[in-house]
């Protein structure tokens, strides 16, 4: 690192008198006093090793955060009740989310520095989740002091409560691991005895009986502890009348074990302890992999909910007090310091602010917000102290809703999965029937082999691949897309997404970024520009239409009432006791019978008209920008052979201008919402699979009607509700990734289904004719399950969508502040 950048944080060093400190015997230049303090602290604790091993520049916390007074609210019992565990030995334990943890070096630094503080019993940091578990003695040190210490090291702490689902997931993983190891170790033991028995090493019947007894002993916990989920699943399936794949598994395992016990005590026939244990082990392994994928999905959504701070600064009569977020209510005025996350959804009261909504959109960059704009809980305040009014708290916040959305998507089964379930159910019935028939036939031919052959049939044809691999593929694909900011609400959407032939875009707010500005205006009938602007702003302040953003909320708006939004036309409302309409020319002038005499000489541009009962008052000419990635997406989709169209409620001029610049040849302008729906249905009649990308209220009907609907995350909530997918990113680029992932998912599902069917077709006759021993059947079936699950897990690797042109270089960043060392496809 050169002397022009700060040794600690990497920021440029001021030209005059930069602070200098000695670190590990060498003089280093720093950018600010706070970096110097942090570096000096690290040096004083003898932890300069940190600088050798860290991945790159690290954070410093603001002076405010390093002051333990800042954290004193956390010493209050009322607040500690939320996130602190009081242990019986008098110690307390808290979970803290740390901002700025990037790599294992950070972990080391924190654990060593905090571990040396007297009163701290233990601290451990997980760099993947950036969470620390802190255990301390409340009589010797206050929590506020520890939190300040963490901040002094450069990691701003955020205490949090562990989610119940997260704890449940950890417990599930631990139990599954225990089952897996019991099954694995047990299988190895039983197998070694089985090999001895098969080889007939001991002709001595006494030793044979002994080995069988030992096998029985070892296999019993494998069957009843490790195999318990199969029996539970089978029982649940039988009770609910749906034959799942657990039924043949339970029958095979239970049957093999019971028969072996019988033969062990009678000293007759064969024993199948080896087959039973192997079956349990391989199936448990496949399920463990599937569970890992599921948990990865959960930790992602869980991480979002945890980014809300616990403490807020509430303003009461000009006095700032620290309160817990739970104590906030709608209408409270709160202050948010720079670098802090917003504790609740709300409206900005300060003139302007910039916030980073990376958590929602996946893109880390400050977005400017003006007074009156909506703010989303969990976004970071990047600029200066901002003041806001609270609108929604806790579970009502947009972020909590998104977390639920992702949960919903998991609950809804795509058609393909339902189909796989249905097929599996039939399949199971057929398998049971086949096994019964085979047993009967063999009973006639060779009664002593009947059981063994029926067992082999039961095991070899188990449709696990069918019932396990398809949901696994969808779960993994949904998760990896969520990381790109593409939330799939209905997983059936992936299926249609992969078969797309047409993509229809809405224009405003979809292909353009939805932040229009008034570029030009013209007024008539003694209406001044200021008046027109005020009336327009007053009306539009009640609208969430993207165009409303062109009219900044002024300080003093005249009273507005009776505002009605007419889809595809505009707004109507009463301002200062007078009725106005704002919107398309036809709408604004619809009160007067004579058609307007205003010549429209700027057709290529977007225009909004303001009118009252007597005629037009003003015309606003708006300019808007193309959305990030629009060029790239239209180019790549067209290259992939998809037909692109623009259906817009807008006038022909701006629509054709945009279509030209994007190279989209089909467009339809001035469409009403029903027209859009009709146009899409027309395409569908021709057998096209249509994706609709839109964002506004006026898009909701067509979103509901399209084969796949994608709503923009910044759009209206109604549009998001009728959509299959929500694009949280400001850029359109994740669309490309979504299509690729969808295609890969379907390809992998098809591969898996083909494999499962082909395997069964080959294996069933072999098993029925008695050529396969039960252990071979168990091996084959389990290997097949592992193969398809492993194949599905390949979807965790994200496709790399590289922009082909220089100006479109905004790739979506990894949204969750995971450790920098985490490889994209890490399998844990």
């Amino acid at each position, binding site marked *: 690192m050169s002397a022009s950048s700060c040794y600690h944080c990497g920021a440029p060093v001021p030209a005059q008198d930069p602070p200098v400190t000695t670190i590990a015997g060498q003089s280093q230049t720093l950018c600010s006093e706070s970096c110097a303090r942090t570096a000096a602290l690290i040096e004083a*604790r*003898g*932890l300069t*090793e940190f600088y050798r*091993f860290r991945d790159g520049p690290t954070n410093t916390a603001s002076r405010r955060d390093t002051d333990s007074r800042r954290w004193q609210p956390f010493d209050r019992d009322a607040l500690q009740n939320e996130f602190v565990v009081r242990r019986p030995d008098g110690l307390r334990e808290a979970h803290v989310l740390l901002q700025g943890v990037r*790599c*294992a*070096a950070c*972990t*080391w630094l924190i654990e*060593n*520095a905090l571990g*040396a*503080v*007297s009163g701290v019993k233990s601290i451990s*940091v*997980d*760099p*993947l989740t950036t969470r620390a578990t802190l255990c301390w003695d409340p009589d010797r040190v206050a929590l506020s002091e520890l939190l300040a210490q963490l901040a002094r090291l450069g990691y701003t702490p955020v205490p949090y409560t562990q989610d119940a689902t997260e704890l449940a997931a*950890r417990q599930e*993983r*631990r139990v599954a*691991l*225990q089952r897996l*190891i*019991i099954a694995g*170790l047990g299988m190895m*033991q039983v197998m070694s005895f089985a090999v001895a028995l098969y080889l007939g090493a*001991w002709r*001595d019947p006494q*030793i044979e009986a*002994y*080995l069988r007894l*030992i096998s029985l*002993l*070892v296999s019993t916990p494998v069957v009843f502890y490790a195999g318990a989920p199969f029996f539970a699943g089978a029982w649940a399936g039988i009770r609910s009348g749906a034959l799942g794949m657990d039924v043949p598994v339970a029958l095979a395992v239970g049957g093999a074990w019971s028969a072996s016990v019988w033969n062990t005590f009678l000293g007759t026939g064969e024993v199948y302890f080896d087959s039973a244990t192997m079956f349990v082990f391989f199936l448990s392994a496949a399920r463990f992999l599937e569970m890992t994928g599921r948990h990865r999905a959960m930790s992602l959504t869980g991480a979002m909910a945890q980014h809300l701070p616990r403490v807020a600064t509430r303003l009461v009569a000009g006095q700032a007090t620290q309160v817990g977020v739970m104590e906030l209510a709608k209408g409270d005025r709160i202050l948010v310091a720079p670098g802090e996350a917003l504790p609740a959804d709300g409206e900005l009261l300060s003139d302007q602010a910039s916030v980073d909504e990376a958590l929602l959109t996946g893109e880390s960059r400050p977005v400017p917000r003006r007074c009156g704009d909506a703010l989303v809980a969990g976004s970071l305040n990047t600029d200066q102290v901002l003041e806001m009014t609270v609108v929604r708290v806790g579970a009502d916040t947009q972020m909590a809703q998104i977390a639920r959305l992702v949960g919903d998507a998991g609950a809804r089964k795509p058609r393909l999965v339902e189909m796989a379930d249905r097929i599996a159910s039939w399949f199971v019935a057929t398998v049971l029937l086949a096994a019964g028939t085979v047993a009967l036939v063999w009973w006639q031919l060779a009664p002593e082999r009947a059981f063994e052959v029926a067992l082999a049939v039961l095991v070899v044809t188990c449709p696990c691949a069918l019932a396990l691999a398809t949901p696994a593929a969808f779960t993994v694909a949904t998760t990896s897309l969520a990381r790109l900011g593409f939330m799939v609400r209905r997983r059936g959407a992936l299926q249609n997404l992969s078969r797309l032939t047409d993509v229809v875009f809405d224009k405003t707010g979809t292909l353009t970024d939805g932040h229009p500005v008034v570029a030009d205006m013209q007024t008539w009938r003694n209406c001044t520009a200021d008046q027109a602007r005020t009336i327009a702003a007053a009306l539009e302040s009640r609208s969430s239409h993207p165009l409303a953003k062109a009219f900044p909320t002024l300080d003093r708006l005249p009273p507005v009432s009776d505002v009605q939004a007419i889809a595809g036309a505009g707004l109507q409302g009463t301002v200062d006791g007078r009725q106005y309409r704002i919107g398309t020319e036809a709408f604004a002038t619809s009160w007067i019978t004579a058609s307007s005499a205003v010549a429209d000489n700027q057709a290529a541009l977007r225009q909004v008209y303001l009118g009252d009962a007597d005629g037009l008052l003003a015309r606003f000419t708006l300019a808007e920008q193309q959305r990030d990635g629009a060029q790239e997406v239209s180019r790549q989709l067209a290259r992939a052979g998809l037909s692109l169209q623009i259906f817009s409620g807008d006038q022909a001029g701006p629509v054709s201008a945009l279509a030209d610049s994007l190279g989209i040849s089909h467009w339809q302008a001035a469409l009403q919402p029903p027209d859009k729906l009709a146009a899409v249905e027309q395409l569908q009649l021709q057998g096209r699979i249509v994706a609709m990308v839109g964002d506004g209220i006026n898009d909701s009907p067509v979103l509901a009607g399209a084969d796949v609907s994608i709503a923009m995350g910044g759009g209206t909530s109604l549009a998001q509700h009728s959509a299959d997918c929500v694009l949280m990113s400001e850029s359109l680029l994740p669309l490309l990734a979504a299509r690729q992932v969808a295609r890969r998912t379907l390809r992998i599902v098809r591969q898996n289904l083909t494999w499962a069917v082909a395997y069964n077709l080959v294996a069933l006759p072999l098993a029925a004719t008695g050529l396969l021993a039960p252990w071979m059947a168990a091996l084959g079936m389990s290997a097949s399950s592992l193969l398809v699950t492993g194949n599905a897990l390949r979807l965790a690797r994200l496709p790399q969508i590289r922009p082909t042109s220089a100006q479109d270089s905004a790739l979506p960043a990894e949204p969750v502040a995971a*450790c920098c*060392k*985490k490889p994209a496809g*890490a399998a*844990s």
Partner: protein
Amino acid sequence: MTIIYVLIPLGLMLLAAAVWAFFWAVRNGQFDDLETPAWRILMDDDSKPPPED
């Protein structure tokens, strides 16, 4: 070959010990994070910081 009457139970005892050790490890969270420990080995713990106060 009567030795196997002794050796196999001994082996099973080892198995039980392994299972116990594994369960202990799982319950202690040893398998919760499989990534950090790999990095931790690169850190030098020799220079223990002076205790605070």
